[in-house]
């Protein structure tokens, strides 16, 4: 009962009624041993929607997006991505992963491959794209993140900001329908945050469906359709940015915003 009610509220919030969501998370439960990491999460994401997830560390915000492509297992509930249901076979998991790009806090570029090879690997090995075509695709997206001149360098030769842009390009080479960002700017030196955020903003402007775990509230204000605040494994508040920042309803949201906006 609660589930249905919550979904209705979310739908009403964003005017998604009547449209099939590209991601539907229902009654998701996740435990790490005895620790209840995600408590009955329900979330619908529309195609083209940009969602920012924030919250204190350990609140489960990264865990949610890691469940969407099954980098993290979950105990019960269901996640349906673009009509493909997760939690059944590995075949489905691979189908979802090919549709969903992910960018990590620590970049996770492959150190033994050049920037270009990092971008070519998945199209060649997962999609069976020819080497020549994979290179064309890779260069296209490296240009897209404004870093084509670094194509033949190794990740260790790039700055953090450049590495993260390569990571974005690498994900885009699989032409994903959805992009997940797991604190993409948290490991960056301050002067490099902007170049990565700019790349993400332009991606958002092109209509990419995005779920982004971040504490960059400026980014949330500028591009998010909805901002979600999580704490102790629950979605505490979910609203459009102007509403979320000007009149947060929940006490915990107000405390959190007070802490991160006043420093």
């Amino acid at each position: 009962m609660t589930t249905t009610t919550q979904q209705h509220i979310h739908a009403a919030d964003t005017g998604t009624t009547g449209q099939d969501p590209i991601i539907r998370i229902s009654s998701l439960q996740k435990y790490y041993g005895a620790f209840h990491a995600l408590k009955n999460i329900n979330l619908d994401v529309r195609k083209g929607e940009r969602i920012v997830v924030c919250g204190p560390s350990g609140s489960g915000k990264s865990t949610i997006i890691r469940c969407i492509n099954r980098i993290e297992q979950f105990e019960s509930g269901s996640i349906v991505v673009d009509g493909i249901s997760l939690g059944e076979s590995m075949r489905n998991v691979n189908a979802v992963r090919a549709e969903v790009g992910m960018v990590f806090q620590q970049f996770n570029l492959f150190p033994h491959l050049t920037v270009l090879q990092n971008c070519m690997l998945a199209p060649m090995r997962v999609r069976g794209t020819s080497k020549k075509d994979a290179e064309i695709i890779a260069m296209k997206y490296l240009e897209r993140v404004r870093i084509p001149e670094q194509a033949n360098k190794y990740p260790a030769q790039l700055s953090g900001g450049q590495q993260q842009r390569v990571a974005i390009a690498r994900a885009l080479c699989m032409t994903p329908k959805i992009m997940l960002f797991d604190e993409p700017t948290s490991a960056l030196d301050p002067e490099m945050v902007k170049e990565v955020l700019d790349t993400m903003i332009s991606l958002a402007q092109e209509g990419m469906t995005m779920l982004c775990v971040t504490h960059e509230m400026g980014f949330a204000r500028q591009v998010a359709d909805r901002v979600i605040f999580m704490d102790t494994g629950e979605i505490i508040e979910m609203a459009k940015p102007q509403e979320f920042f000007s009149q947060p309803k929940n006490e915990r949201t107000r405390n959190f915003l007070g802490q991160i906006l006043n420093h």
Partner: protein
Amino acid sequence: MSYKFDFGVLLPYWPQLLHACLLTLWLAATAVICGFIIGIITVVARRSGLMFLRAIALTYIEIIRNTPFLVQVFFIFFGLPTVGISFTPWTAAFLALSLNCGAFSAEIIRGGVDAIPRGQFEAGAALGLKPLQVFRYIILKPALRVIYPALSGQFVLALLTTSIVSSISAEELTSTAQLLDSDLFRSFEIYIVATLLYFALSTIFSFIFKGIDRVFFSYPIK
């Protein structure tokens, strides 16, 4: 100390010694290549989702690592014929060395794989690569780089271990030296020469491994 060295008596036998050196190098090289492949397969099996594969891999590693090499050689050469599986000394030597090298390599390579950050596996999976592809294209090379000094040390050790298979008279350097000794009774000279030849062989081996290191593992890291 009135011993008079006479290396001259060995001179006529140098083609035999050279031949023995080449055979030793050949035996060691094939066994190392084979052992390396066995090692990688064993590491994959140990990480497999299938319990029986993990059990086989672990049993193999533990048996080889906890028994003397000489006994392994005897088991293959003298033991197995009892159940109708017999080999020439050379094949038995090759099998014993490969299996031995494989088990020790597996443990070393596993250490390298364990040293790779979880994020690398996750990034591969997130791109849609299957677990074996992640291992093959993303994990293996950086893992080998981490443990390369230990692995090449193990391979040089495999070269020196070939001397033990002289006990089943495979025609490698040590058994050739033993044969010459029984003809010439010049143990001191013969084993000085054998020692120098082994030293030269392992230097060649190390040199090759340094070359491989330069070619494959020279990418920059932080």
